């Protein structure tokens, strides 16, 4: 065990955890949205993220466009991609239940990973931006600018999803459909349309997460899977009772990881995260923000 | 424990249970004697099903105790209560859908009462016969009608050879002729098995027809208890439950 030598080190570790957690959070939002309506674990989410990362990489190396524009470009492109993916693959399988969808997502992940490695080769790539290694200094605390941008993106994505779900008719329809698909259909809400929209948004958010990841970390075609595992934990941490759940869960995970890496050992950080995850599952299965539901008998 | 010369099978003492701020049950006392059919009625949300769930340990009461044949059983796990002699049916029917009717009842005989082999099979068949489902024993329950599934639940509960069976709205969703059949089955069960029955029901006329005693819940409190005739006359009950008296 190491203790914190000073308050500033403590805050530095804390801030780093929060910023790392925002990264997990932004990856988790899309996941939780897709889980929410379609009740599937979209394992290929990590692969989709990396696909977006490669798109940005291409854009940044082949053209003089600033990678930060990627956020704006990726959104419509991946919205379309998600729509096509749903219509082409998931619409049919979603009817068959959650397990085939899980399987489909797994197949898609394998396919995407290897197609990417065929196109871009499996070597590590990264995108260098104007803010790549710059940082702000507040007293003795250093804050990475890139990570701050990612945190802002995570907040914005959460806010947008929140607004979409709470304020728009379509968003309300999404919430209704995720609670009772057939009752929603009776009101004139098309289940396939709602699912397709949700899926497309989920994919678009994965794309945004991919852009966020590629300006922060080097990546390769197989980098996404670990990320989707962490995002999954973030989702479980936050619970799905609230839209902010994934972000809060991500931040909790990030802080936990960086705290245990500093005080304990980086080698155990993952185990600590998983153990906390188990503990939370056992003590508060609905997640930290979720509402407890009473089983109807 | 004796009460009017008969054995008290189930006794509830001051059961209190709240969810969040909502007081679902508030100091409810109740007792059921051997071979007695006790009806439990009350408006929607009065706490009838909650009471069942407290008795069968799906919920833990905040206060109060449950006694079975004089022994305190509060908070014992559901499956132990079944071994001790409490079986039940569910408002939303809970049969094991992928199993046949026979196997459903067999589970009651094997796990509810601890019978084995031939004895268990015979008991299961006997219970099926009692509810009139003997000829449908090889039908997978997923393919059964609601009425048959309700009967099946009763059979499964009886196969456990309980001291008391809790039946939760066995007539919900049934048509009049099916209701008559269910009434007959419940009556037959009591007569042939001498089992005590605690019965939650919405169909008040059905309750009045068959019950030895009726208890009325309203907002988690027991507001009346007595013979069906008495309850039917009780002003409090009529106002709280039936609304304005019929013209």
């Amino acid at each position, binding site marked *: 065990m*190491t203790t914190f*030598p000073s308050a500033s*080190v403590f805050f*530095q*570790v804390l801030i*780093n955890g929060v910023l*790392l957690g925002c*990264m997990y959070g932004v990856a988790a939002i899309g996941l939780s949205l897709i889980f929410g309506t379609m009740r599937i674990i979209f394992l290929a989410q990590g692969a989709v993220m990396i696909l977006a990362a490669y798109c940005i990489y291409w854009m940044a190396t082949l053209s003089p466009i600033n990678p930060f524009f990627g956020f704006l470009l990726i959104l419509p492109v991946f919205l379309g991609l998600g729509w096509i993916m749903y219509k082409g693959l998931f619409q049919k399988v979603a009817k068959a239940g959650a397990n085939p969808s899980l399987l489909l997502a797994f197949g898609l992940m394998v396919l995407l*990973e*290897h197609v990417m*490695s065929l196109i871009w*080769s*499996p*070597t*590590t*790539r*990264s995108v*260098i931006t104007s803010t*790549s*290694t*710059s*940082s702000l*200094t507040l007293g003795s605390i*250093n804050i*990475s600018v890139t990570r701050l941008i990612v945190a802002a993106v995570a907040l914005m994505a959460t806010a947008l999803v929140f607004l979409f779900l709470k304020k728009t008719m379509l968003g309300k329809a999404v919430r209704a459909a995720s609670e009772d698909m057939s009752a929603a259909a009776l009101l004139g809400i098309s289940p396939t349309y709602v699912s397709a929209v949700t899926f497309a948004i989920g994919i678009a958010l994965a794309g945004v997460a991919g852009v966020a990841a590629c300006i*922060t*970390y*080097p*990546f*390769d*075609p*197989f*980098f996404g899977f*670990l990320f989707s595992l962490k995002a999954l934990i973030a989702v479980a941490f936050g619970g799905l009772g609230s839209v902010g759940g994934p972000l809060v869960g991500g931040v909790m995970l*990030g802080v936990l*990881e*960086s705290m245990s*890496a*500093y005080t304990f*050992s*980086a*080698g155990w*950080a*993952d185990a600590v995260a998983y153990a906390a995850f188990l503990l939370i599952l056992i003590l508060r299965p609905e997640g930290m923000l979720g509402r407890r539901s009473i089983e109807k008998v | 424990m004796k009460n009017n010369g008969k054995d008290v099978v189930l006794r509830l003492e001051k059961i209190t249970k709240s969810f969040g701020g909502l007081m679902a049950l508030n100091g409810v006392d109740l007792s059921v004697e051997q071979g007695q059919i006790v009806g439990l009625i009350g408006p929607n949300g009065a706490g009838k099903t909650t009471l069942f769930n407290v008795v069968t340990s799906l919920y833990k009461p905040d206060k109060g105790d449950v006694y079975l044949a004089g022994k305190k059983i509060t908070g014992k796990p559901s499956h132990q209560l079944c071994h001790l002699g409490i079986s039940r049916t569910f408002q939303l029917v809970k049969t094991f859908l992928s199993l046949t009717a026979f196997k459903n009842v067999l589970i009651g005989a094997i796990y509810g009462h601890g019978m084995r082999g031939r004895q268990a099979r015979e008991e299961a068949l006997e219970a099926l016969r009692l509810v009139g489902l003997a000829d449908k024993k090889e039908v997978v329950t997923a393919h059964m009608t609601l009425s048959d599934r309700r009967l099946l639940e009763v059979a499964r509960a009886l196969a456990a050879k309980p001291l008391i069976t809790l039946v939760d709205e066995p007539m919900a969703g049934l048509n009049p002729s099916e209701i008559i059949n269910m009434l007959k089955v419940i009556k037959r069960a009591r007569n042939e098995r001498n089992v005590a029955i605690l019965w939650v029901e919405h169909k008040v006329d059905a309750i009045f027809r068959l019950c030895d005693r009726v208890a009325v819940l309203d907002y988690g409190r027991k507001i009346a208890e007595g013979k069906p005739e008495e309850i039917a006359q009780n002003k409090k009950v009529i106002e709280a439950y039936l609304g304005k008296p019929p013209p």
Partner: protein
Amino acid sequence: MMKKTTKIVFLLTCLFFLSSLFFTMQQARAKDKKEILIGTHMPLSGLGAFTGEEQKWAYEQAVADINKAGGIYVKEYGKKLPVRLYEIDDESNPTKAAAAVERLIKRVKVDLILSGQVGAMGVLPGMITAEKYHKYYHGAVIWVPQFLQQHFKYCTMYFMDPGQGAAMVFEVWNSLPEKDHPKRPALFLEDTFDGKTIGNVMESLAPKFGYKFVLRLTMPMGAKDFTSQILKAKGAKVDGIFCMSNVPEAVTLVRQMKENRFSVKAFQGFKGTWPSNFYKSLGKDADYILCDGFWSIDYPYKGAKELGERFYKDFGRYSTNVGMYYAVAQILWQAIEKAGTLDDLKVRQAVLDNKFETVNGPADYDERGIALFPLGDNQWLNGKRRNIYPFDLAKYKIMVIPPWDKR
């Protein structure tokens, strides 16, 4: 119930599956030998993929080169036979590496096996499998103790000596001016066998060269944040780093060092800092960082320069790796010719008995089947790796890293 016809179609499909398996498996070894079939497995996907690509290229060059020369003369058949290479992707997974070697031996029925990669992730399971079926596995990239533990009779290895590698690091640091020697160096190690092995050797050899590591920190594989480690190092006033990791981790570490304004005098990376993508990912920030090299285009050996330039032509970058893989193949070709047969034990014996000239210098196996080559050290500057070690071959000298704010 489904229709009978569909069921029949289904069964026929299954039959097709099975029968095709049977038939392809029954290719007997032809009496009339037309080619030498060499099998290999490589990490073309998964964690080791970044090195698999260069290995694949080097092997294919070695095969093309020998075939251009008409093949290898094998006395047993009285003629020159061309070489054919059969590659399997082992996905950086030890179980799949073992299965890959099973497939090479039993289904593809290769004559001999060229090494896979990355120690316990590929080479070791591959060697164990080859050993089971008495197939010669011409190995590389595995640590000596790991190799010796198994008492192999059908395998050989060609790699660097970790002790020598560790000594190199200290010798290079010592070649700095006295005032710039790292006084409080730290180890940043990935949680793999490679990390552990090299870390142990570094720690045990340090006192001999007048060093002592003040910290030993773990960098878990796939981790995305090393700030905690950096803060600890900063707190301990670390001024020199030895880092063993993969590329993404090394890149993230350096980026975060800069973000946290943490400078050291010397940064020696192993494995994660040599690929050219390391530099591409960091740009100028990668300058002055040291990287190990299994080989250098600047080596004065025959074919080295030519090979390095060919690689540059294909990839637009330089490699510090391909020469080593090319050398592994070169040794095998020469050994086959000297053995005059494809018999597994005889070829292995030829490997043990002879000395070989390669693009990576001379190779001489000992009686345990081990040949070690010296590790090289390079320093990044302006996108180029400047060879600084071995001192007698190197054209450049090490430079101290200026602090971030002075660059």
